[in-house]
């Protein structure tokens, strides 16, 4: 009997430590929130590129820093067993490809921050490179959520 209890205790502990819950309270929710923040940060840069908003170097840099922080955390929010939401199964089937796409995003953000753009003309190419990596990752690793 005690053997049975200790076995189920071990099984329970193992389950807790390997479950997606251990990686955070709710990775599906967390990554969604993080990406919403990224979208909110992308919007002002996009409006500047589209000519709907006056250029402001500080606004651009604030958004780039948001990308920088998000790209450092994002990869950890897809632990095994946390499939769901808008995450494509390809994230777990092709982890290396996903990590590569994330790294491309982080690298483009680093390059944009290093360039420290002070004019619209300086912002266009570096921001364009960052936006390309959004699309590059979404095309393969994001699915439509219904």
């Amino acid at each position, binding site marked *: 009997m005690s053997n049975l209890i200790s076995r189920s205790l071990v099984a329970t502990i193992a389950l807790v430590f390997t479950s997606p819950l251990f990686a955070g309270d709710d990775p599906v929710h967390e990554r969604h929130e993080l990406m919403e923040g990224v979208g909110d940060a992308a*919007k002002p840069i996009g409006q500047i590129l*589209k000519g709907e908003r006056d250029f402001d170097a500080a606004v651009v840099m604030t958004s780039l820093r948001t990308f920088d922080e998000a790209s450092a955390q994002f990869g950890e929010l897809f632990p095994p067993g946390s499939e769901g939401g808008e995450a494509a199964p390809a994230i777990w089937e092709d982890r290396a490809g996903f990590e590569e796409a994330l790294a491309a995003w982080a690298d483009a953000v680093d390059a944009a921050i290093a360039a420290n753009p002070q004019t619209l003309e300086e912002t266009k190419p570096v921001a364009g490179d960052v936006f390309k990596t959004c699309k590059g990752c979404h095309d393969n690793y994001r699915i*439509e959520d219904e």
Partner: protein
Amino acid sequence: MIAAAWWLTSPQTVGTGDLPDHTPDPEAGERFFWAGGCASCHASPVDGKRAKGDDKLLLGGGLELETDYGIFRVPNISPHPDDGIGDWSVVEFVNAMQRGVSPDGRHYYPSFPYTSYARMPVVDVIDLKAFLDTLPPVEGRIAPHDLGLPWSLRRGVGAWKRRYLDTAPLTLPASPTLVDRGRLLVEGAGHCGECHTPRDRFGGLQREHWLAGAPNPEGKGRVPNITPGGKNISQWSAADIAYYLESGFTPEFDTAGGSMVAVQENMAKLSDQDRDAIAAYLKALPARD
């Protein structure tokens, strides 16, 4: 009765004498290649994935469309003389694109969206052929479709066409405006309605719901309503629509998803004026919920 059915289902074609006097312009034709999304179906898949970059110009076919009717296999339309369409005449190409009839006089299934291409000006179709003729020939014939009864009876498509194939403008009247430039692209080459408009039980478009959104033919979810009504893009400005088609980013800076990824990449190849025209047309549509 049989004679009537035979007449009803007979292929309707145009003759060489019906064609306008026009010098084919391959450069002008490239615009319709991208607007028409030819590569999205006809470019041979690479390692089982959608072709990218210059591979989109290799139109060897081979993509399989799994539908409720069976499997449609996309044919080779590269200019290869035996395996593709390299030895087709102009009038044969026009009949394929705008009447859904093959050079040997058989009906094509409307998985090939000739019901939309029928609305293109004929000179644009002639220019498109001139552009396709400049692409590399690709070897290899694709196996025929694999459809269940009664869909495998190809002749029946003739009756379907009598109801669903015509060349008249669908919504707004023809006029020399930016909206009209958009109308030609959206209702014609762009064949937007094929996915964004719901179908009736015979698979024909429900024109009273033109571009008002439809069930996703490739799985769950819905294809968005792109009229000024509904909740999908009614808040978007014309500039937002044009920017989305150019960059793939929505006003919220989300990216295009699903089948629209490939469509947007094609639209990105058009001119700013064409994208503005598409946006102007969509904004001019009657709002439908």
